[in-house]
């Protein structure tokens, strides 16, 4: 089986549509501007449930998986250690990836009606890495919605630049990343990576602003 490789734009749109839909009563005109409650999105919007299972990671190297429970309902099975870990970053990203798999790939996989079907289907996926890349991109778009990151980064940049005490360019970037980590409850690595992504290319714009001594971030590059 070949899993479709989605365009980045398509994935961003699918994630944004999901967020707009589920948060429409809280944010009628935009996507969430702070951390998304990823459990609630998975449970409330998509009807997924969670089952923590001990030592899934230690025994099988599996953080989480998407499957069907005994009633045929979609379920995210997750390693208990990850589920209970006080640092939520990895947990949140894992759940967001499973949500990505559910939104982008579950329709094809749900054709499996028996255990043997499911095993055959799992083993028959030829472009496994593409499926994983789809889910990873979806997770980033869900936890770090581009327009919200852009809005927050612009505000933080202007605030830090105008604030007391002179910061070097690197200090300002580190401070900005740390604040985005807090706002969106994701890892610094995820924030840094998201800042480099198209179409916003925020890191390039921050570097340009620093180099040219701008008080605010320049608009998106065309």
């Amino acid at each position, binding site marked *: 089986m070949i899993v479709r490789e989605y365009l980045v734009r398509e994935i961003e749109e699918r994630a944004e549509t999901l967020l707009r839909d589920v948060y429409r009563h809280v944010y009628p005109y935009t996507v969430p501007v702070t951390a998304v409650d990823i459990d*609630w999105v998975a449970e409330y919007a998509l009807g997924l449930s969670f089952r923590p299972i001990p030592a899934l990671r230690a025994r099988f190297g599996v953080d989480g998986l998407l499957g069907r429970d005994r009633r045929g309902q979609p379920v995210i099975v997750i390693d208990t250690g990850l589920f209970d870990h006080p640092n939520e970053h990895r947990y949140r990203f894992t759940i967001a990836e499973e949500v990505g798999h559910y939104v982008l790939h*579950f329709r094809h996989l749900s054709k499996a009606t028996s255990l043997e079907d499911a095993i055959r289907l799992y083993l028959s996926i030829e472009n496994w890495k593409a499926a994983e890349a789809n889910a990873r991109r979806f997770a980033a778009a869900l936890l770090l919605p581009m327009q919200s990151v852009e809005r927050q980064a612009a505000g933080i940049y202007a605030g830090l630049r105008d604030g007391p005490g002179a910061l070097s360019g690197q200090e300002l970037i580190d401070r900005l990343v740390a604040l985005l980590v807090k706002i969106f409850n994701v890892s610094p690595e995820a924030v840094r990576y998201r800042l480099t992504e198209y179409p916003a290319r925020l890191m390039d714009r921050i570097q340009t602003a620093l180099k040219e001594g701008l008080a605010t971030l320049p608009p998106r590059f065309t």
Partner: protein
Amino acid sequence: MAKGRELTWGEFVRTLRLKAGYGLRTFAALLGFQPSNYSNMETGKTKPPRDAARLREIAETLGITDKSEEWHRFHDLAAKAQKPSVPADVAEYAATRPVVPLLLRTTEGKRLSDSQIRELIDYINKHF
């Protein structure tokens, strides 16, 4: 959601929790439960608290008004959940239908072999 049978305490609480806008971990944290312990209560793997004050705390966090219809139902279902019984349809499903993993994420990005995935399925079904 359960069809053709009464909701369990966990299903009832889950419905109210999601309506109130709480994800599982957020809700567990608000009440000071470890997420897996709270999840096990909702899915019926473990029983709800016996302690009246703890139950009240959960009800209040869900926004259930004291002595309302929901309040009575919440407590009735909690009391029922203390009895050792498995609904007939759940027992039937458990015996005949295994949990089926469809897509999984390994820490090293590796795929599991046929035998590894069978072992994993066995393991999950034992612990589910």
